[in-house]
């Protein structure tokens, strides 16, 4: 029974996925209840996670392949919250789309369950299975829209995702071949024992793993799919991809590299790779975002740049006294702040493009007159993405930069700060257009109440954690403390 207890939150979500399908089959006229069933499942998962957090007797299950600890609790909250916001924001869109509503929610929930499994996975096989569990529904979702672009996005995402999975498997195979086990703890022991003699093999495995996860994290040079898929996929799905799978990839990478490959001689190697990838991602993502005219493409490139910001935390391992912990808590804080912020931005875009029928940034001119609250919420999210106070994004950036400085990566932090300035330019250009531009059409834009709710929650998170960041910082530090032994 304890094993069921450990994966309880994930099971709750999967149960809800089944319930959604069953409900649609049994009571087709009452489709309006579907999203609320999904939300009930997510609430159940959050409640179960809370029970774990309160009891605090964390531990392992399934012979060490899966564990529940402060780290997985943190991510389970993030994924439950993200999925809930995405579900609420989807209601309006799904109803308008009209077809296969139950399947949509079931797929979203299945993907969410996969993400939550990833948060606790400590075994190569479990990691891979959880990753596929979350990825395959997302491939289908990316192609969910009726237009050709969405189909193209789905296929593109599927093909590149398959390549990524293949690279990942090669990397995992090398690790297994070296250590004779798929458990991260065994791998860590093997690396400590005879890793120094097999450094090149381990470095090759690291590179393959980074490449495989790089697709999911959407960092340069594995970022080609991002703008096309974000632009083509239905916007709620793009929001889910940009936040959920990115966060999950970072969660797994931290587990895998900090726990399994954390030996000092090795971490020097991969930390350097992360640092370079971070610098290139930030710079390239921001420069390309500057010239975009489509807001979803702009957000796509900006999410590449943001992934570079996260990655500073992965590179900042060598902090005296807080090895791994300082960097990991930075990544965690950034993940949570970014989840609220990017979801908010995407939801605002959903609401706007639904009414104006355009994703062109130019069509945002004068939005302040047409939908003041929407414009204000989007402005706050963009300001947070730019890392300007008083928003959650600012503290996240400050915290990650702090880890970078303390790990002697001053050059990387300077690159990060300069990139923040570049990014502020294009984020604020949208804000400026909304508030100072002249609208061609002065009519008010109505906003669906569900979309407003989702947007309100996200924006409130951005602002509240911008002004009172301490609870989030404390949670991130506590979660990151699981790496303290490394």
């Amino acid at each position, binding site marked *: 029974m304890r094993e069921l207890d450990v994966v309880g939150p994930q099971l709750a979500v999967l149960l809800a996925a089944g319930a959604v399908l069953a409900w649609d089959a049994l009571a087709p006229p009452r489709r309006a209840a579907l999203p609320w069933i999904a939300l009930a499942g997510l609430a159940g998962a959050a409640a179960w996670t809370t029970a774990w957090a309160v009891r605090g007797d964390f531990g392992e299950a399934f012979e060490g392949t899966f564990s529940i600890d402060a780290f997985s609790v943190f991510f389970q909250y993030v994924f439950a919250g993200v999925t809930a916001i995405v579900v609420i924001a989807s209601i309006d869109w799904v109803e308008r789309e009209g077809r296969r509503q139950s399947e949509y929610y079931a797929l979203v929930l299945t993907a969410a369950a996969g993400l939550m499994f990833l948060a606790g996975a400590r075994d190569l096989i479990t990691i891979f299975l959880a990753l596929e569990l979350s990825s395959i529904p997302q491939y289908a979702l990316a192609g969910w829209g009726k237009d050709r672009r969405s189909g193209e996005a789905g296929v593109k995402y599927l093909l590149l995702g398959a390549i990524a999975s293949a690279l990942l498997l090669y990397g995992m195979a090398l690790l297994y071949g070296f250590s004779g086990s798929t458990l991260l703890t065994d791998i860590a022991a093997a690396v400590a024992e005879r890793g120094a003699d097999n450094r090149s093999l381990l470095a090759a495995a690291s590179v393959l793993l980074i490449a495989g996860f790089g697709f999911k994290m959407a960092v340069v040079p594995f970022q080609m799919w991002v703008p096309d898929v974000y632009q083509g996929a239905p916007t709620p799905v793009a929001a889910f991809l940009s936040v959920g799978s990115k966060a999950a990839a970072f969660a797994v990478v931290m587990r895998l590299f900090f726990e399994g490959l954390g030996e000092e001689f090795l971490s020097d190697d991969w930390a350097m790779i992360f640092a370079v990838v971070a610098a290139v991602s930030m710079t390239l993502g921001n420069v390309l975002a500057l010239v975009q005219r489509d807001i979803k493409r702009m957000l796509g490139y900006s999410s590449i740049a943001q992934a570079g910001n996260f990655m500073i935390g992965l590179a900042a391992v060598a902090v005296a006294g*807080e090895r791994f912990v*300082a960097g990991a808590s930075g990544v965690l804080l950034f993940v949570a702040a970014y989840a609220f912020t990017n979801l908010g931005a995407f939801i605002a875009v959903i609401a706007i493009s639904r009414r104006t029928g355009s994703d062109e940034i130019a069509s945002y001119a004068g939005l302040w007159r047409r939908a003041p609250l929407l414009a204000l919420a989007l402005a706050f999210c963009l300001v947070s993405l730019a890392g*300007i*106070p*008083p928003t959650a994004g600012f*503290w996240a950036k*400050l*915290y990650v*930069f*702090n880890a970078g*400085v*303390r790990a*002697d990566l*001053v050059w990387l*932090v*300077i690159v990060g*700060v*300069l990139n*923040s*300035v570049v990014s*502020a330019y294009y984020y604020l250009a949208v804000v400026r257009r909304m*508030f*100072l531009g002249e609208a061609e059409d002065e009519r008010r834009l109505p906003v669906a109440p569900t979309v407003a709710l989702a947007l309100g929650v996200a924006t409130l998170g951005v602002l509240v954690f911008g002004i009172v*960041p*301490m609870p989030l*910082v404390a949670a991130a*530090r506590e979660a990151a403390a699981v790496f303290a032994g490394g």
Partner: protein
Amino acid sequence: MELTVLVFLPAFAGLLALLLPADRARYARWVALAGALAALGLSLALFFRFENGGGFQFADRASWIDAGAFEVQYFLAVDGLSLPLVVLTTFLTVAAVLVSFSIEHRQRAYFACLMVLSTSVLGVFTAMDFLLFFLFWELELFPMYLLISVWGSGRREYSAMKFVLYTVAGSAFMLVAILALALGAGTFDMAVLGQSGVESAVLPLRWVFLFLFIGFAVKLPIVPLHTWLPDAHGDAPTAVSVMLAGVLLKMGGYAIIRTCVTILPGEARDYGVWFAAIGAASVLYGAFVTFRQTDVKRLIAYSSVSHMGLVLLGIGALGTTAMVGAAYQMLAHGLITGLLFVVVGLMYERTHTREISRLGGLARQMPLLAAGLAFAGFASVGLPALAGFVAEVTIFLGAFQAYEWAVIMAIFGVVLSAGYILWTLQRVVFGPVRPEWAGAGDQRHWWEHASVAGLAALVILLGVYPDLIMDMLDPAIGAVSARVGS
């Protein structure tokens, strides 16, 4: 509590003004005036309760985020250096509100921006936590951008963007320096940093010093980073010019004394000679370029470059007398240039031109305004018994020992200033009467009288009773120069 109330009072009044119903928009100016007067009253109360030589007083302090390796506080306090600047700010805010009484376009938003601007400047002068300081420093950009680009004239969008880009580029350097300094020392507390000094940071201290200086020098501004200033002044509405010249430039000088010199005295000793050289060059260059200006507001802007060069020269000498002179010059220049912009702005409202060649003979048509311009002009030249004279003499006396050559250059610049001011007065106030301004009218509303008379009275007060301020500046600056050891 007093300082927190003082700092946020203007923004609160601005918020109230913004929330007025549309048919009550004309009351926005009264709300703003009430807030500005209350802030002035409160700052005067602090001024008279302040104990000279008592260090930092009226402290408001609370922990904001405690991230283990560093702590960010909400920490406001004033000492003898910052309190006069605080009073200057609240005083000029009242003047700025008064000269805005004739604004018709989007009044509520205008006064909200103006009051938020005041809050951000007050925050910069009172923040004693380096990060909080930076936040207030950045906050000022938003209202400034809006004020220039919405309510400005001429190439207002270009000027507003240029202002923002220059400042942001400077602040990027500043942020790197702040992070390097504070994360290295583990505290953002400026009082602690200023007392214990900093022996080492993650960057070479020379760089930290230079980066901070670049950030502040843009604001001061020094030659060659000054080109945003004439554009911003030229296109800004009158009240914004008053605030910009009156207090925003002072943020640069204040910050150099408070951080560069106090926290990094060793580097200040090494680079003081460069301060003096750049200061003297700014004095001369500004004075020469002023001669060629044909637009009255741009002319005053360039004369500001010249006068702020004196501030930097005084700081560079590092002695108590010279730095007290620099601080006094900031106050004097704030009042005098504020008065110049008020008078020129009122003239512009009547003639709708700022071209010197189109003005002339105004002594006949607008005797009061002409007298105001003449008075402010003489004060700007440094006529004895007026504030500017005290400041300039103190700087020259204090700096002469250290940098004879720089002082001689600067004195030559002051002689030039007499030239351009008198020449301008001759062309604008005297000369043949122009028939087209016959019916333009003179200063006539009570708020116009009040702002001109109030500023003029203070210019005289600071000219005849300098000890009022000197006694406050002396101990505060004395502590700084004691740290530098000269």
